[in-house]
């Protein structure tokens, strides 16, 4: 099986420049320096790489949205603010192969004619942060970025920004607000960042995993990448498997890979004494699948959509039979209400309200009216806000109630007729 992202993870000191360069690292960057930006973009476009932050938007196409000749600088923001519960793929890339990511970022910068890369990393990351800082310093000393890179006459700067610990800064315009030094709040779109992003300039925001495959695409060609995965979901993807499976962790598989094979074979199936109850397939915001449906679905964007859920960030949360679903939904509601930036009315008030309703239900104080109210609050929040954070709670609420309503009903207080 072809591995792109995890190919060097078992190599000793894979995070060092020496290790990366011994495996041909930064050769593609040197090649890209001599290429026309449009040619790089075209190659990535042809490869069919899609954004791995969760939305799955075609990466090469996104790059073409940068307007030319505006007279303004163009920025690339590397989104390393990985915060979706259940997702820890980017962190491991940062920790194990930071140079591959830096090289991919530099190539992307060249493709969009960007001279300043903002590398935005989640505030809670520690080892990953130290690894990227060290790697950037090594790359700078080696002349891979800075002034007049490798005598090409080109300049690219690489600025690392550490987040303050807000989930919403992983949303691209929230990230831009934070990079600008403002409060981490998503911005009204349009204008889209590609036209008017950081500091009012054209800006592309790409996820870590997305950028990390760019050197491979340039080395092996778009066709080689497209040969992996499915027609509409080409390439490989990292999946973070958590829950009571025997071997949780990050797995790289080609898109279209059967979820059943990943969970039952690669991860070794459930731990002894536990049975699989449900799977949240793409990070905690994606609708939950009961085990029987989950084990029949393939890991690609289209197959997931067909069963009413999303591939998302690839954070696969396996839920075992001991887990109370109302309790789990309470945890999620707490997370999203706590992480709501609070600017949009429906999200600010709705996520908190939903959380408190779930507290009431879980405490055995809820009534049938509370359950209806929870659904109503969810539908009033849905699609009514600047970013998708409110919907990131709406989807679990709907998914949990669709498949596990009886568990919620069992907790309700019976109303005594007066």
């Amino acid at each position, binding site marked *: 099986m072809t591995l792109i992202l995890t190919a060097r993870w078992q190599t000793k000191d894979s995070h060092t420049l020496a290790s990366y360069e011994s495996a041909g690292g930064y050769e593609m960057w040197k090649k890209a320096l001599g290429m026309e930006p449009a040619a790089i973009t075209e190659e990535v476009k042809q490869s069919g790489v899609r954004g791995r932050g969760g939305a799955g938007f075609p990466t090469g196409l996104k790059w073409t949205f940068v307007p030319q000749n505006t007279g303004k600088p163009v920025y690339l923001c590397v989104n390393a603010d990985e915060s979706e519960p259940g997702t820890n793929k980017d962190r491991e890339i940062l920790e194990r192969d930071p140079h591959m990511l830096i090289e991919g970022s530099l190539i992307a910068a060249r493709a969009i004619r960007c001279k300043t890369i903002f590398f935005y990393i989640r505030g809670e990351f520690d080892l990953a942060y130290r690894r990227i800082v060290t790697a950037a310093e090594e790359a700078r000393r080696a002349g891979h970025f800075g002034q007049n890179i490798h005598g090409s006459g080109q300049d690219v700067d690489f600025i690392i920004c550490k987040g303050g610990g*807000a989930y919403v800064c992983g949303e691209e315009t929230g990230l831009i607000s934070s990079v600008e030094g403002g*409060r981490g709040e998503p911005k*009204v779109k349009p204008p889209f960042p590609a036209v008017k992003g950081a500091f009012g300039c054209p800006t592309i925001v790409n996820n870590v995993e997305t950028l990390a495959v760019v050197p491979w695409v340039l080395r092996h060609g778009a066709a080689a990448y497209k040969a992996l995965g499915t027609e509409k979901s080409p390439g490989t993807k990292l999946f973070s498997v958590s829950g009571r499976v025997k071997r949780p962790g990050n797995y790289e598989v080609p898109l279209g890979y059967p979820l059943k094979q990943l969970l039952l074979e690669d991860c070794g199936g459930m731990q002894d004494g536990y049975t699989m109850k449900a799977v949240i397939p793409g990070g905690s915001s994606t609708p939950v699948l009961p085990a029987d449906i989950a084990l029949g679905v393939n890991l690609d964007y289209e197959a997931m959509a067909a069963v009413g859920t999303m591939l998302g960030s690839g954070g696969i949360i396996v839920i075992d039979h001991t887990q109370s679903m109302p309790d789990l939904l309470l945890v999620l509601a707490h997370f999203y*209400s*706590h*992480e*709501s*930036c*609070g*600017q*949009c*009315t*429906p999200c*600010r*008030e*709705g*996520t*908190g*309200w939903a959380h*408190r*309703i779930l*507290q*009431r239900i879980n405490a055995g104080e809820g009534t049938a*009216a*509370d359950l209806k*109210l929870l659904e*109503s609050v969810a539908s*009033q929040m849905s*699609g*009514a*806000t*600047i970013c998708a954070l409110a919907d990131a709670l709406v989807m679990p609420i709907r998914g949990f109630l669709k498949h596990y309503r009886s568990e919620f009903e069992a907790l309700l207080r019976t109303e005594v007729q007066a």
Partner: protein
Amino acid sequence: MSESPSPKLVNVNIDGQTVSVPEGMPLIDAAAKLGIDIPRFCYHPNLPVAGNCRMCAVEVDKARGLPISCATPCTEGMVARTQTDTVKKHRAAVMEFLLVNHPIDCPICDQAGECTLQQYYMQHDLQTSRLEVEKVHYDKRVDIGPRVVLDQERCVECTRCIRFCDHVTGSSELLMVNRGDHNAISTFPGTSLDNDYSVNTADICPVGALTEKDFRFKARVWFLKEQATICPGCSKGCNVDVSYGDHAILADYNGKAFRVKPRVNDAVNKAWMCDFGRSEYRRVNDGRLSAPSASALAELTASASARLAAAGPKAVLITGFEATLEEMALVRALAARLGCKALAVADRADGKADDLLLEADKHPNRKGAEWLGLAADAAQVARALRGAEVVLVHRADIVGSCPELAEAFAAVPQRIVLASQESATSRAATAVLAGASFLEKDGHWVNSAGRVQRIAKPQSWRIPAGREDDLQILAGLGAADGRVRAHEVFARLAHEVAALRGLSFASSGQGGVMGGGACA
């Protein structure tokens, strides 16, 4: 007007009506042109768009979901609907969300009666509460600045106040702290909301989160009325509304002014005014001069008139830069009849100025005095006073403002003062005639840019006995025969004074009109 090319016009259709607007105009403003009031909390035409309240969402053809009309630029052929069931349901949902953590303490809230949340509850919500869980509590009565007080519980987090301080004053004292439903407006540590325009934050606050300390708990707004007029505080001439008492039962309120708020005029002050101007309502209430009765005032006026007539050319007439154009015209007419000098003089020192609204010249009508040929400096006035037998000082505290003039004034045997408030000059007078405050008369001031703007009195107001409109007193002193009317005086001025040519009471309207031949 400027040379900039006029923007391309586009046709948009809203609720079945078509309107032609400049391309890119926010849909919410295009709707307003059709008289369609799309509800909003965070949108303010003079501030950058935030798009956070979500109240102004409408249906737009070919757009996904419900786009917010404040952030939807008009394009050719755009079709929008603001009254569909989907839109109405959305508005009710936003209202319900806003009330989830709102204390609903209207009975003790000073915003009650002019609260957007109350108004929209009646227009767009009217649901009973479904809230069965505890509300989030925040701080109340937060002393965030010398003139504004904050109630964090009532806040709807629209961020208008933050954007005002960031983009209008540039002073950035305010910020949002915390996240989600624990969001709260606050000041940066070690700072206070203490800029020269801080009370505007209370004006633009749609709810009772920010209220003006000076006005708080003075009166319920439904007992007050508002009069459109001009701020007397400086030569900028900010357009304002003065709230005044006018109530059948609450007679204590009557005759009093309670506050000054900016009135929108994009050509002068947009939607803003400075904090200093806010206290100008006190001129209506405090230190007012009054004769014991109407007949006493008539007697004083007749006696003063006789003294002026007797002095003839040995009289001197002085008016201030706060007098209206019409009053100045009568002072000039009286001087012509007496064959004496008439001069207008400053009585307020230059003060704070900035590049927003505040102007150094603290008189509202210096330009008018210049146009009427009355403006003089202290030395010229002192010279004129030398050897005078009678002086009439109208609306100028020359004694309190200038030692040289105080001395010259004291040396004149007969000193008649016509003013509305007590001053060093009125105390040094031999006769005092009690005139009207700026809220009790009709007339015009000319701001420093040459805009002729109307000051006006509430239709229903009667000046109490013992005081009189300055124009009538000046007429009684011999400037005119019988009662005069401000619009007639202005009509004559428009005929005589080149800078006012062609203007009338009708044309000066509510937004004022440029005089001086600068602009039609």
